[in-house]
């Protein structure tokens, strides 16, 4: 395996753990455990499920450097991101959408962290879902 493949694997693994944790806790196991009986058992299990908190910052610590490396393999350097040269053309527009949404998620992570955010979490998950879509278009190309 070369460095490129290692970085892709690390990028996807970190993404899977972070977003998987967010989707599953928010949409599946959290609500599912709420309805367990007796209620005291449900509360205890929900408390146990939250003892480690979220994975946002550790995942970002892997996603940002690996993401920058993967962009450099495509010929996009950090300076191109600041100058806007990276966002030219259809693929550039998709990259701009993806990185904007990443900034939204970092903003969410900074502001809310692991605190409950009953409404904002759905916007965060929508952003995550759109990032996955943008990534598919970037990697697989347009039609």
């Amino acid at each position: 395996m070369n460095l490129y493949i290692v970085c892709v694997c690390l990028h996807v693994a970190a993404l899977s753990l972070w977003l998987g944790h967010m989707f599953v806790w928010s949409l599946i196991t959290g609500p599912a455990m709420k309805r367990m009986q007796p209620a005291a058992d449900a509360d205890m299990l929900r408390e146990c499920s939250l003892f480690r908190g979220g994975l946002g910052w550790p995942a970002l610590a892997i996603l940002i450097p690996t993401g920058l490396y993967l962009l450099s393999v495509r010929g996009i350097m950090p300076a191109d991101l600041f100058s806007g040269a990276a966002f030219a053309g259809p693929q550039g527009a998709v990259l701009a959408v993806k990185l904007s949404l990443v900034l939204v998620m970092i903003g969410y992570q900074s502001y809310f962290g692991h605190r409950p955010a009953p409404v904002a979490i759905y916007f965060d998950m929508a952003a995550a879902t759109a990032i996955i879509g943008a990534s598919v278009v970037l990697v697989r190309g347009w039609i």
Partner: protein
Amino acid sequence: MDVYRLTVWAHLFFSIVLMGLALFWLVMDVSLRRRFDAAAADGWLKALKSARWPHVAVPWALRLPLPWLTWAIIAVLAVTGIASGKLIGRVPDGSLWVAKFALLAALLCTQAWLTWRPSRSIIRVNFVVVMLTIVASVAAVR
């Protein structure tokens, strides 16, 4: 997005959810064992199997227990994986692709065991197998 990219997106999305479910069992196992002895923790894991999804809008009898929800996600992954291969007209080959299917077979075994009786060892093995399957899939298509 066309149908091909939508199936790839769905495959990736549900892979992430599958990873999240494996992580959930791991977190619960670690957390319960910090709080209870081994026998009690196993009992709680067994009780956790009875949690059902979705928790609203669907009659109780139609709500899926957590392990069966995982089977439903695996079924969706199989459909989207086969569909994306057919839509693009080719499938990858090579040793990593063979490794992916070997890991997939292992995943089905660990999931069956997890459905039957969640335990410390199978939860850990399941987590590692899901992670390796995703990594092998990513590496195989590059």
